[in-house]
């Protein structure tokens, strides 16, 4: 485990034990309940950030899961007389199942990201509230829990709830740390920056989003279950108000939604501030003052308090920049070879037939140039092969495996890598992390350390050794294109699909890129190479396929194919066919 990991693994439980000891020693009840409320908000805000902060799927439905948990405990203890503690895991499980159900439907729809997802989750909250209000779960009069026995973990009921809340908060923050330093967290962060590219690099986006959503909802459900005992009179109006969904967003964004400790800091600050101004006269003005402070913090620290504090600390104690020299030899060979084959692939978009029965093949160690006028379907073909779009008809195979109808991340893990015409690096990741992600999610299983080592090698291979710690917005176009390339290579592909990797480069850069591509070929990778720059096509390709309006109009050795009459006609017009 890393140094920081050890620090957290020791520090967090230690803090938890210290806080627990406070209660055992006999804290006045008010502090117990005040701190309980803070713990509850810490758990809520931190759990919210699993999906919404890390992956960027802003959910306004956290209140629904909290409410589901509250009513689960309320109903089970009063209607079925289950012991209170037993209802807590059930509350969490129900909330998690609810989230999983919603996610299973919603996450498959590509459109429903960003604000739409937020709205959908808000709507879920209202729907759930209405159902609870109109059925025997509540029906209107509220559920009265005063008669439910509370286990005596500590002398006072408030102390017991304090311990439960503390336990949940510590567990949640610990989970946040674990997630943000795991494959799951890495994948979620990548989904935040560019979900489609993450999927194409092998991140199982649907599974990860479901996991994050269910985990986040489950914790909210448990928090709700505990809170039901705290308020002891559960009504729909108070449970499903706009407070919970709104406040968790504020707390997380204030503290820093991408950082594991951010929401906890934000929650502590906001929850405490609600108490500062409870004295009679100042109540109204106090609220305004707190709001003003919130505004100022967001304007001045847009990433949140914790990241801003960390950035300041890093500036004060800079870490040395890693400089990597290019290796004497190219890195180790990639996975065993297999030929890529497209068999009669068709794809339409609405009324436009983008691909008409395209068939081609690329052997290992071969460079196939794919050319054609604009709009002929080259990028669409790459998108179909890599799994971004499904094929309407036909098959795509890699060696003995069929690729069609598989999700894109599986295709990536079988060894298909690609670059994008306009580079799409993960904006919040350094160059090194961009490449390391691809290495992490590529075929086989590598440890984070090994992934970083491989990433360093690929960066050096593409000449970006010195820029490992740079963010993508600090790189120029040439560097970003080569980052695309390094990232594609780090996925240990058997086949690599290059989409106009040379466009926008100057002649010297083009020459070095050509050399790189040749080196890649020498290692046995099959290369499908879309390009407009004829010089490069002729120099590099072993064979060429010409596409026009979705169909193959010529195939064969480069010069012959380019001279075919149909090809000349398509590029230059009938008059030039001669």
């Amino acid at each position, binding site marked *: 485990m890393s140094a920081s990991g050890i620090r957290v693994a020791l520090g967090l439980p230690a803090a938890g034990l210290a806080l627990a000891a406070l209660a055992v020693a006999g804290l006045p*009840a008010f502090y117990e309940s005040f701190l309980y409320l803070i713990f509850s908000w810490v758990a809520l805000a931190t759990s919210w950030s699993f999906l919404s902060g890390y992956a960027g799927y802003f959910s306004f439905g956290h209140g629904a899961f909290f409410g589901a948990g509250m009513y689960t405990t309320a109903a089970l203890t009063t209607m079925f007389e289950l012991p209170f503690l037993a209802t807590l895991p059930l509350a969490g499980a129900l909330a998690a199942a609810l989230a999983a159900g919603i996610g299973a439907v919603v996450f498959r729809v590509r459109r429903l990201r960003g604000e739409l997802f937020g709205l959908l989750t808000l709507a879920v909250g209202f729907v759930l509230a209405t159902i609870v*209000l109109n059925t025997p779960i509540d029906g209107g*009069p509220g559920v009265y829990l005063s008669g439910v026995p509370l286990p005596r973990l500590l002398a006072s009921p408030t102390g017991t709830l304090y311990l439960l809340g503390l336990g949940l908060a510590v567990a949640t923050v610990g989970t946040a740390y674990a997630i943000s330093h795991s494959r799951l967290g890495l994948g979620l962060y990548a989904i935040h920056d560019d979900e489609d590219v993450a999927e194409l690099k092998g991140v199982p986006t649907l599974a990860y989003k479901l996991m994050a959503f269910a985990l986040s909802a489950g914790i909210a459900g448990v928090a709700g279950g505990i809170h039901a005992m705290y308020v002891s009179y559960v*009504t729909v109006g108070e449970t499903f108000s706009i407070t919970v969904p709104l406040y968790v967003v504020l707390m997380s964004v204030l503290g820093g939604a991408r950082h594991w400790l951010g929401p906890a800091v934000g929650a502590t600050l906001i929850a405490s501030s609600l108490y500062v101004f409870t004295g*009679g006269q100042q109540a109204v003005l106090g609220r305004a003052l707190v709001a003003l402070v919130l505004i100022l913090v967001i304007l001045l620290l847009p990433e949140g308090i914790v990241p801003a504090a960390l950035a300041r600390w890093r500036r004060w104690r800079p870490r040395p920049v890693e400089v990597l020299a290019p290796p004497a030899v190219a890195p180790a060979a990639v996975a065993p070879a297999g030929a890529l084959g497209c068999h009669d692939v068709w794809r339409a978009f609405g009324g436009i037939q983008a691909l008409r029965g395209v068939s081609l093949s690329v052997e290992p160690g071969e460079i196939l140039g794919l050319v054609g006028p604009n709009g002929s379907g080259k990028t669409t073909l790459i998108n179909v092969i890599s799994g971004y779009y499904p094929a309407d008809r036909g098959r795509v195979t890699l060696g003995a495996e069929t690729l069609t109808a598989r999700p894109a991340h599986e295709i990536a893990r079988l060894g298909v890598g690609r670059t994008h015409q306009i580079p799409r690096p993960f904006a919040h990741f350094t160059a090194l992390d961009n490449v390391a992600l691809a290495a992490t999610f590529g075929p086989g299983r590598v440890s984070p350390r090994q992934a970083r080592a491989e990433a360093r090698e690929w960066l050096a291979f593409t000449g970006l050794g010195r820029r490992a710690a740079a963010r993508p917005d600090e790189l120029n176009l040439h560097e970003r294109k080569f980052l695309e390339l390094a990232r594609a290579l780090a996925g240990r592909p058997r086949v690599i699909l290059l989409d106009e990797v040379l466009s926008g480069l100057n002649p010297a850069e083009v020459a070095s890129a050509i050399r790189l591509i040749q080196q890649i070929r020498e290692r046995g990778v099959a290369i499908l190479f879309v390009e407009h720059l004829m010089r490069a096509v002729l120099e590099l390709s072993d064979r060429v396929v010409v596409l026009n309006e979705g169909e193959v109009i010529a195939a064969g050795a480069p010069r012959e194919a380019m001279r075919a009459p149909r090809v000349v006609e398509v590029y230059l017009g009938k008059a030039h066919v001669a």
Partner: protein
Amino acid sequence: MLTLWRLGSRGALAWLLLAAFTATAVAAPAGPPVRIGSTLALTGPLAPTALLHKIAGEIYVEELNKANGLLGRPVQWVLLDDQSKPDVARSLYEKLITVDKVDLLMGPYATSGILAAMGVAQRYQKVLPHHSFGMPHLAKYEGHFPTAPFGPQPNVTVPTTVFDALAATANPPKSVAIVTSKFPSAQFLSAGARDVAAKRGLNVALYLEYEFGTRDWGALAARVKDAQADFLWIGSLGLDSNQLLEAMKKLDYTPPRHFHLFPAPGPLALAPDGKLALATTVFEEHPPFTKNPGAARLVPLFRERATRANVPYPYVDTQAGGSFAAWQILEAAVTATKSLDDKVLGQWLRQNRVPTIIGTLRFDGPNNYGDDLFKVKQVHDGKWVVVWPREFAAPGARLLPP
């Protein structure tokens, strides 16, 4: 001086006694203050009504301090804002008891907050007087004392009072339409109204529950109009009443008789559609209520303070009256037992009747509830007057139409 000298020792003694007596009677309360802690919804959705409780409480404490205080000591009211949230109320009551270490408690506003406070009071065995609790069957702590005098079964007694009042008119209703908010206490009483009406042989033509926070009243109004009942019972809160009446007016429908459960009294009385609206009350600013203990002081002071605070309807009624009564029973218990011990106070209250501004209260029934003291009032010329029972009606007032 010369005169005193001439009075001799008996005269001097008389003067001395007179001086001593005057001193103790008029002396300002002295010593460490008696601290009474409570919360109110000073912000949030419940703030409108909580404001009335704040004003009533402030008046009470000031008057108390102008006189003898409590047990000769000044009274300090430690008031905190629970932001209309029961979970905040709970922790603030814990603060008042364990950190601020107040001597006595006063309840917050509204059922949910009071329940939260009651739990805390129970744990620390402190007496909790309160003034706005609507679900007596939920109040299971023997140290709580309600001055919203619903009696132990308001879902039976309140509708019975209303139907009795209607039955005493020349043309009692034969059918009733009930529309109620799903707010817990309103729904509870309105469901009771349905049962009482059915038992009395009335036809319940319509029974609807709407969501607390409904914005569009058109459809509800249309359904009520469609039902064409003789009597409309609205389990309303705040301005629901006005909105529904207005919506019905837009459909050119005025219900023949209409009753409102928890309306905002001012706006309903002043609304053009509020004519002859019925509601319940425990206090109105006319005899015989104005003869009750404390009324003479409270009514003008409340008028002045509330006007200054920009309250649109600055008159004492159920809320302010109930609030004042809660302070009265606390003072009565403390003065009678000369003690600040909660156990002693609780015992005394359970065994004694206390005359208050809203009538004589007793707490020896189930869950410490006593008599249902609610009367029926009606809007006559933009003002609320009590019309039933007859001995409490304003001079010359009766339920209209007769």
